[in-house]
């Protein structure tokens, strides 16, 4: 590293700083730098001797993540408890009253003709079966010739 003293040029407008001692004022305990390399070697060795999964868990479960994990776990637990107590409604359980339908905004989106068709097909299904049986009985009772009906049609 270059240690040529050229900072003085930068300090020509600041005589106070230019004339001050630039000695390092920070000290360390005695023997600090003699023991420091050993500390580093020990740290590296201890990290290398740990299985990868321990290092992974240690990295994941850092104190800074603990709060986030607890919040997530609490949210998950309350979600599970809530949905167990309030199971989702199935189609069969959806019962709408007349007032519900009447007040619903969706009712306006239906085509009236579809509603009429749906009603008639449902309502007439039983009726038509009923009336067909009556007609058949009438034709059998009166021994009507089917060819006459065919001619009429």
């Amino acid at each position, binding site marked *: 590293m*270059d240690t040529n003293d050229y900072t003085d040029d930068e300090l020509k407008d600041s005589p106070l700083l230019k004339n001050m001692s630039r000695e390092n004022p920070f000290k360390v305990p005695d023997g600090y730098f003699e023991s420091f390399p050993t500390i580093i070697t020990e740290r590296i060795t201890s990290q290398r001797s740990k299985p990868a999964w321990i290092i992974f868990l240690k990295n994941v479960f850092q104190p800074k993540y603990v709060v986030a994990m607890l919040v997530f776990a609490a949210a998950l637990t309350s979600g599970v408890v809530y949905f167990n107590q309030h199971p989702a409604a199935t189609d069969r359980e959806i019962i709408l009253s007349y007032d519900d339908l009447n007040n619903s905004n969706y009712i306006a989106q239906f085509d009236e003709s579809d509603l009429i068709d749906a009603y008639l097909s449902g309502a007439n299904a039983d009726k038509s079966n009923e009336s067909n049986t009556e007609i058949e009985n009438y034709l059998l009772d009166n021994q009507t010739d089917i060819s006459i009906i065919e001619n009429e049609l």
Partner: protein
Amino acid sequence: MTEYSDSELLRQFRNENTRNYAFNLIVRKYQQKLYYHIRKIVIDHDDAHDVSQNTFVKAWKGLDNFREDSQLYTWLYRIATNESLTFLKQKKTKFLIPLGDVEYELAANLSSDTNFSGDKMMMKLQKAILTLPEKQRIVFNMKYFDNIKYEEMSKILDTSVGALKASFHHAVKKIEKYLTED
């Protein structure tokens, strides 16, 4: 002890048989420079000790991927600077210290630091330096105390030479003002 060149140390580091020995030599070669660089940023000795350890552990992990496009000390200084800034950021969040108050706390630590040997004027200068924004503080220290060239500083801090010169100039003005105010 023979002081090897950086390229020789790196060559030995890449050899599995001499890897640990080479890294130990790298630590011995750069520990003081890096420690004092870190110390000027975090002020407290214990904090500087922790950050220095983290710096070398990171260097150990990353040295395999280090390509000699840059110089080793530039790369180490960069790790040390980043680790120091990360440490200060964590300190702010951990102790819920308002952003501007960390420097206030560092100045308070300085006053009670038994490992500080400067006279009254040096103490005042250090407190003046602590009023600077973090990056400006680092630039000032690197230039004023370590006399690092702007070109080298530029590689370490990933900032243009022009911006560094301006930063130093502003820092000098602010410090001069602080020192002459009372």
